[in-house]
């Protein structure tokens, strides 16, 4: 597998570009592996990579029911940030941001991570006070670049928002994280796949798990559309489809409900927006950035009702369009190019699970709600650490399924045990 380097680019220029090799193998499913990761999304791929890289483990397979990057990995709005306030979350997402900063070098793949600032608009004095409190907590606990901007500073940086006095949502200021930004989601999938494959991981696509065979408190094998595979350890990293796999393993219920979230891309435009702009009003009501191809990438609220359908509905399209117009009126004539939806694992407190399960050799990675993209590297890092060491890292020690029994809710929104309220 050819490394990407200036030398290889020059060499292949004289070689009719014939020196490039395929970026990852397409192996047959072996009958047995030491570790099987179910789910070839960004989290599953990152997990396999870190299992190989950080822990020197071999004989690992990733089973992906569709094609790499075809799930939520290819359906998100690419936002990366670490401005989380709750203990556990803030260390995790900050570590993730640091992994993002070095990802292209680490993977030898340009993931186009662009630290262009994340700007959350504030529309009430209460929102400003709340931000001041939260962002001060973040500054004191390891996220040093969270800032609170007044109107003047915001107008200077993003002059074309709707600042008129009779705007539907008059802007008073903004909560800003400068090291936050966006990345090219496909590149993250391909980068991790290529790097994991280089370290010996088998990536098996078009391989859907159809059954889980247990014996004596352990998973013995998985039945798949490409055959039966025995595994020493198994990790589930399947986001919105977690409950389906959990049911196959006969493990009962989970504090997760699957909801759908739509996302949109416009026709390519000349550089229009240099940052990620978010319009909050009590949630992630609308968020927008511009990809390096020029399309505006944006999204809004979840569809609000439970669904596995991966397709959206028109009332939300109208809702998001209205929010877009109220924030960036200049978008009025821009054409919508693409529109899609993903299935998300909404949890009871809006935070994730990286934990052991009732079965000795089964590990769970789930509950990412609508914020899994930014977590991809740390999710892989800590899930790999858990699987390799058979115990959770201190950072994620409260991110287990039993935290509600202990009275622990990692609830950034403070919304309570109703999954749809964490969207």
């Amino acid at each position, binding site marked *: 597998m050819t490394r990407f380097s200036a030398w290889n680019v020059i060499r292949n220029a004289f070689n009719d570009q014939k020196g490039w090799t395929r970026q990852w193998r397409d192996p047959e499913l072996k009958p047995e592996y030491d570790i099987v990761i179910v789910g070839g999304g960004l989290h599953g791929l990152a997990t396999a990579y870190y299992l190989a890289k950080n822990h020197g483990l071999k004989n690992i397979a990733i089973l992906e029911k569709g094609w790499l990057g075809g799930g939520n990995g290819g359906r998100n709005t690419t936002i990366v940030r670490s401005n989380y306030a709750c203990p556990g979350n803030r260390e995790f997402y900050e570590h993730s941001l640091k992994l993002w900063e070095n990802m292209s070098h680490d993977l030898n793949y340009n993931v186009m991570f662009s630290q262009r600032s994340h700007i959350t608009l504030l529309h009430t004095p209460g929102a400003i006070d709340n931000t001041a409190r939260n962002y001060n907590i973040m500054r004191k606990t390891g996220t040093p670049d969270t800032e609170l901007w007044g109107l003047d500073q915001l107008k200077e940086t993003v002059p074309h928002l709707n600042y008129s006095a009779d705007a539907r949502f008059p802007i008073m200021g903004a909560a800003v994280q400068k090291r936050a930004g966006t990345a090219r989601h496909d590149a993250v999938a391909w980068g991790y796949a290529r790097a994991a494959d280089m370290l010996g991981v088998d990536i098996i696509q078009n391989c859907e798990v159809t059954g889980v065979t247990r014996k004596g408190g352990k998973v013995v094998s998985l039945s798949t559309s490409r055959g039966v595979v025995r595994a020493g350890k198994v990790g589930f990293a399947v986001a919105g*489809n*977690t*409950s*389906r796999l959990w049911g196959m393993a006969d493990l*009962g*219920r*989970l*504090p*997760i*409900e*699957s909801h759908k979230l739509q996302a949109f891309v416009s026709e390519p435009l000349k550089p229009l927006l240099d940052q990620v702009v978010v319009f909050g009003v009590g949630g992630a009501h609308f968020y927008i950035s511009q990809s390096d191809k020029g399309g505006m990438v944006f999204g809004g609220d979840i569809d*609000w*009702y*439970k*669904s*596995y*359908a991966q397709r959206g*509905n*028109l*009332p939300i399209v109208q809702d998001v369009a209205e929010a877009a117009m109220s924030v960036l009126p200049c978008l009025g004539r821009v054409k919508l190019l693409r529109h899609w939806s993903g299935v998300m694992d909404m949890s*009871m407190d809006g935070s994730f699970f990286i934990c052991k399960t009732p079965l000795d050799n089964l590990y769970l990675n789930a509950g990412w709600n609508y914020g899994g993209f930014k977590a991809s590297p740390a999710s892989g890092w800590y899930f790999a650490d858990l699987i390799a060491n058979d115990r959770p890292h201190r950072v994620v020690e409260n991110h287990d399924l039993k935290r*509600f*029994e202990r009275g622990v809710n990692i609830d950034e929104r403070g919304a309570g*045990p*109703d*999954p*749809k309220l964490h969207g």
Partner: protein
Amino acid sequence: MIRIPCPFCGERDHSEFSYGGDGSVEYPPLDASAEAWHDAVFLRENICGVQVETWQHVQGCRMWLRVTRDTMTHEIHDVKPAHKGLAKALGGASDGTATR
């Protein structure tokens, strides 16, 4: 886009309603164990396929409804008032099943 036949108002677009949650949850008596309450509050089956769920017709009659819907295809199989007494009183089957 999903049409929900409200037993009181007739067939309406889903955007007139607000999704509640899993309608199969049975809340235990108030003096039940913490474990029983934890399970009822936090654990869900999260069915991919036909499930029973609650919706409120917030822009219509504001009644709570028990809807049987396929969470993959969004096809609605049954709608009846969530209140069991009302469901029975509205007629039809003795369990108050509304006609689609």
